[in-house]
């Protein structure tokens, strides 16, 4: 039998990763036989730039590694510098950091839920969930001054306090999310169509997740209880009882498919609300920053010598920064790693043997944004004939599949 495979390049325009991707699929009929990943279209050389700036300037650069994780990266970076220079963060600042990080998780997970629904053809859910997301953005703006790129982290603490008058507004928003959570859960976990489209699709086995060093909800959905907040509690998480969420809490079984990833993210929404409430109840009073005067802080960092690692559980998984200070204005080394870096490789086992129409939801399931499906060229190897498939066509295929299987 003459087995013809077609190659489909997808990408590279891709908004959510540090590295937008180009994918190359080898397709046999409707089935994916081989996946090649080629990231690097968004490579801006951030580490190179950072090594020419002082640590306080780097905070703002770190924030702009990713606009969605704009709390996780400065959080990890500040921790790394504090560990390297031996700066103690006041307890109140640790609590404020955790509150901001958890609010970011709420915003990121709802954003993801909307994108996933869009990929399945549920555009009304996209609009409703993004409407719900605006509430947490309003709260973030109220607390930090910005909707995105909060600019609240500083080496040794935070830049803004949460005052007594602000507490009712925070609780109000948390109540709003508690109210609508039931609806979100109902849409995603009880809907037969979503179950059809996501169960046993894009399976990542426990073994693969372990060997490919996957992080975040991607690995937890495969049954590995791995969460930095639980394993190595940093900041105020050390006082809280955070437990890694695996899908068996909800459904009693672990399959490692897209459906399980939805479960993990939705349950983490509830967890985040609980963490913020605990933080608000137990927040100690006191200073919010170790050294208020930035010139003094810079001088202190200039004299510091040492290396430090900062690890943070970002919405997408473990985010790690490594900093080495060597008695100079610029850090000797700054290395940053975003969670998707480790999760990239998990796409390969997830996508093999899936259908073309499942590409969008499987790629979205590890939570990058998937607007990368910009230009898809189908190249027929035999006669060199080219046909263009746009993001829209690919999306259309996905929507059609949903319609076909809807009972």
């Amino acid at each position, binding site marked *: 039998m003459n087995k013809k495979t077609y190659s489909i390049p997808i990408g590279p325009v891709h*908004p959510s990763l540090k590295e937008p991707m180009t994918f190359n699929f080898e397709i046999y009929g409707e089935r994916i036989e081989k996946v090649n990943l080629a990231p690097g279209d*968004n490579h801006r050389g951030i580490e190179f730039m950072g090594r020419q700036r002082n640590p306080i300037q780097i905070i703002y650069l770190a924030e*702009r590694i990713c606009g*969605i994780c704009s709390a996780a990266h400065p959080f990890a970076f500040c921790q790394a510098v504090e560990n390297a220079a031996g700066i103690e963060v006041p307890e109140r600042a640790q609590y404020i950091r955790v509150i901001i990080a958890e609010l970011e998780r709420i915003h990121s997970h709802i954003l993801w839920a909307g994108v996933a629904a869009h990929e399945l053809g549920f555009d009304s859910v996209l609009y409703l969930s993004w409407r719900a997301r*605006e509430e947490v*953005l309003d709260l973030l703006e109220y607390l930090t001054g910005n*909707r*995105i790129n909060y600019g609240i982290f500083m080496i040794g603490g935070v830049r803004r306090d949460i005052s007594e008058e602000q507490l009712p507004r925070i609780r109000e928003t948390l109540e709003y999310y508690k109210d609508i959570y039931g609806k979100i859960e109902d849409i995603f976990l009880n809907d037969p169509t979503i179950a059809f489209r996501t169960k046993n699709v894009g399976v990542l086995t426990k073994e693969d997740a372990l060997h490919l060093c996957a992080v975040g909800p991607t690995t937890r959905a495969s049954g590995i209880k791995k969460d930095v907040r639980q394993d190595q509690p940093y900041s105020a998480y050390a006082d809280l009882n955070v437990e890694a969420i695996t899908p068996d809490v909800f459904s009693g079984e672990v399959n490692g498919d897209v459906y399980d990833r939805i479960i993990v993210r939705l349950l983490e929404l509830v967890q985040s609300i609980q963490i913020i409430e605990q933080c608000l109840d137990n927040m100690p009073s006191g200073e919010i920053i170790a050294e208020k005067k930035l010139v003094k802080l810079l001088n202190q960092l200039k004299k510091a010598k040492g290396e430090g690692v900062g690890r943070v559980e970002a919405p997408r998984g473990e985010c790690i920064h490594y900093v080495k200070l060597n008695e100079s204005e610029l850090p000797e080394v700054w290395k940053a790693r975003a969670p998707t870096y480790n999760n990239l490789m998990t796409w390969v086992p997830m996508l093999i043997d899936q259908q073309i129409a499942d590409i969008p939801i499987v790629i979205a399931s590890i939570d990058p*944004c998937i607007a990368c499906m910009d230009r898809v060229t189908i190249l027929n190897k035999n006669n060199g004939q080219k046909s263009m498939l746009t993001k829209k066509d690919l999306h259309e295929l996905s929507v059609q599949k949903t319609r076909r299987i809807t009972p």
Partner: protein
Amino acid sequence: MKLNKYFERSLWVFHLNTGSCNGCDIEIVAGLTPRYDLERFGIKLVGSPKHADVLLVTGPVTSKMLDRVKRVYEQTPDPKAVIVVGACGTSGGVFYNSYNISGSVDKVIPVDVYVPGCPPRPEAIINGVLQAWIKLENLRESMKTAQAK
């Protein structure tokens, strides 16, 4: 400004990311969703530059994207307008000294409207799109009069 004049037909927008951090991109999508609801004006994101009237470009231009930005610009039919959203596309922003970045977007393609901010609020992006719309209508009219002559 008489707004009605510019609302004769729907404006289709193609969003192109040339190496942005994603902050602007989610604000663009936020502009389309119910709180800000750009679609009530008939403004719509489309999946191909060949259908678009306006290019919405975010981010500094990385080396790998350089050629693609030009190709997308050339694929967009005339009359067209280019909007740059965000500080890094406008001037390089925080990414001013990298080996892999070719600089701001206006070094690569002609730009009509700049929306500053890191990231700009959805209201600012909507305002930017309206500015481009006004420019497009003027372009169309001048094209019409040129044809009539």
